[in-house]
């Protein structure tokens, strides 16, 4: 096992963790507002396809990122229309959004299968200029990677240090109380969902435009669901979500490491690590989870007339 291979594993862990962290941050916001979006997988797929299509046609990866974000936001608003305005069941609406994402992304992406795009430019991590290129080559990252931890801090600030964040959290705990206190649960929930969609779109854009640089059907491969699991794992807290994403990135890296060193462990069992770990953590936190989950999670706000 050479040092070079080790660095490569570390680098790919960072790449695969980034898209996940953006998506998880978005889901933290919407779940704090009381909405579980099981359709995140579909939202990500459509965003990834849209971002890739726009990048491929215009040649500008930045426009692609923008398009992916907006697509994510719009997909989430569609979900929001069902669960907020039409007061539909959140789990069922999420699954419907997931199916829509599978289909829509296949339709959008079909002409682009096999095409190549120019990726987001990558910059060397500052401070590494003095090391041999051979070793630092793996540590050239695009701006989305550099921005992901600041984004987590930004989401934390937004949720816990602003009036808007307080409103969203209040709606997530008890929509009726928030309404009585003069906040509009419907508006706040729509805003939270739109922001969550933008972040999910960013995560998807990173996947298709910066990381794989290709489009193929079902390329998110369960990341949307892992994001939902990681939200619980991180106890609905944006900063703990960083740890969750690192853990997932670590699991991917561990898997690559084992393969590289020739240890014969089935990659499929390693794939299940994030899920199993989340389950174990949930059990361990079983007694205390009342303090963690937003009390109004999954509840429909019936309005007050």
């Amino acid at each position, binding site marked *: 096992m050479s040092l070079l291979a080790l660095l490569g594993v570390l680098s790919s862990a960072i790449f695969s963790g980034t898209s996940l962290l953006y998506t998880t941050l978005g889901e933290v916001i919407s779940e704090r507002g009381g909405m579980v979006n099981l359709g995140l997988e579909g939202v990500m797929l459509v965003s990834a396809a849209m971002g890739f299509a726009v990048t491929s046609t215009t040649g500008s990866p930045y426009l692609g990122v923008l398009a992916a974000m907006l697509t994510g936001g719009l997909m989430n608003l569609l979900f929001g229309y069902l669960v907020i305005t039409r007061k539909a069941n959140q789990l069922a609406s999420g*699954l419907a959004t997931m*199916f*829509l994402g599978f289909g829509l992304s*296949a*339709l959008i992406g079909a002409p682009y299968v096999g095409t190549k795009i120019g990726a987001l430019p990558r910059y060397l991590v500052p401070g590494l200029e003095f090391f041999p290129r051979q070793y630092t080559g793996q540590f050239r990252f695009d701006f989305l990677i550099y921005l992901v931890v600041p984004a987590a801090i930004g989401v934390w600030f937004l949720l816990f240090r602003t009036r808007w964040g307080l409103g969203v959290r209040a709606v997530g705990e008890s929509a009726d109380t928030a309404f009585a206190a003069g906040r509009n649960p419907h508006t706040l929930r729509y805003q939270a969902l739109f922001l969550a969609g933008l972040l999910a779109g960013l995560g998807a854009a990173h996947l298709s435009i910066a990381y794989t640089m290709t489009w193929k059907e079902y390329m998110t491969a369960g990341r949307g*669901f892992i994001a939902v699991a990681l939200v619980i794992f991180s106890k609905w807290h944006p900063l703990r979500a960083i740890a969750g994403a690192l853990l997932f990135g670590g699991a991917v890296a561990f898997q690559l490491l084992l393969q590289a060193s020739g240890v014969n462990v*089935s990659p499929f069992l390693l794939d299940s690590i994030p899920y199993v770990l989340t389950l174990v953590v949930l*059990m361990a936190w079983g007694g205390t989870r009342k303090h963690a989950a937003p009390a109004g999670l999954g509840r429909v706000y019936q309005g007050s007339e």
Partner: protein
Amino acid sequence: MATLSTTNTKLSLFRSKPFQVGARYMVIFVVAFILFGLILFLAGKHPVEAIQDILVYTLGTPTGFSEVIVRMIPLLFTAIAVALPSRVGLINVGAEGQLYIGGLIAAGVAITFPQLPAWLLLPFMALAGMGGGALWAFLPVFLRARGLVNETISSLLMNYVAPTIVSFFVYGPWRSRGAASTPQTVDFSESARLPTFFDTRVHLGLVIALIILVLFWYVMKYTRWGLEMRAVGGNPQAARRNGIAWARYLILAMCIGGAIAGLAGMSEISGIHGRLRPNFSPGFGFTGFLISWLSFGNPVGILIMSFVIAIITSGGDILQLKQDLPYAVLNILLAITLYVVLAKPTFFERKKA
């Protein structure tokens, strides 16, 4: 209203419940197809031909229709697997995982005892599949009954663990060393295959699924268990105070649901595939959840919705063939159907509930 329906027979037909239910499903279907056509049109495809192809293939040709029925079988199983626990207030999102583990264990039996006669091997496989599904359902409901973890999220998470275990066995110890380049187990012996009807792929699983559906309806409506389960679902606290074993009903309902989902896995690998493959279910468990939810856990509704969803999903092959559209595009039609129901325009509003 009663006087009106006796004086005007024509009106009473329109007011009758079966007619209204039928009309509601028809309108859902029509609106969904129109929206689907619109999306195809915007994407520059030929919407009219596409929809025509789907309908003519699924409802107009014997092969197509038999494929609809084939697709309907696992959906019936998984929908019941969700509907039964929902009667005691449990949300089982884990039918997909239960289906996979059921298929896995049933395949294990089929591979280990290929020489057994069919009358012994098939029931053995079915029991194994049910056991596997029940096992996969037990952990979430056990944690729920102990008040540790909500069953919704744990059963959802376990959905993603189950296919990886199946892949582990199919790529690893059970992989056929034969000519096939795709990873799969050895072909099952003839005695491990469910019999099929009339030279189609429709297999005995259909009969089993329908029997279970009738049993579900009967037990819920006419037995003490059904009554007590509804009591537990309606008001757990009151049920407990009346001496109903609350935790036992939760665990029983969820595990039986899991067993039925496991049966779906067994019937798929035994009736359709004849071997175990990775990812052998294209989301039957999730679709079953939606069917159960859309039909409010009502047995007749489950039957109708399974049929409708089966038509939609089996139209994908023909779209791929004739319109050069990716198979996954069919999910749009499925999603729109669900959206129409979930958004419940006032026309579909149920009088009660």
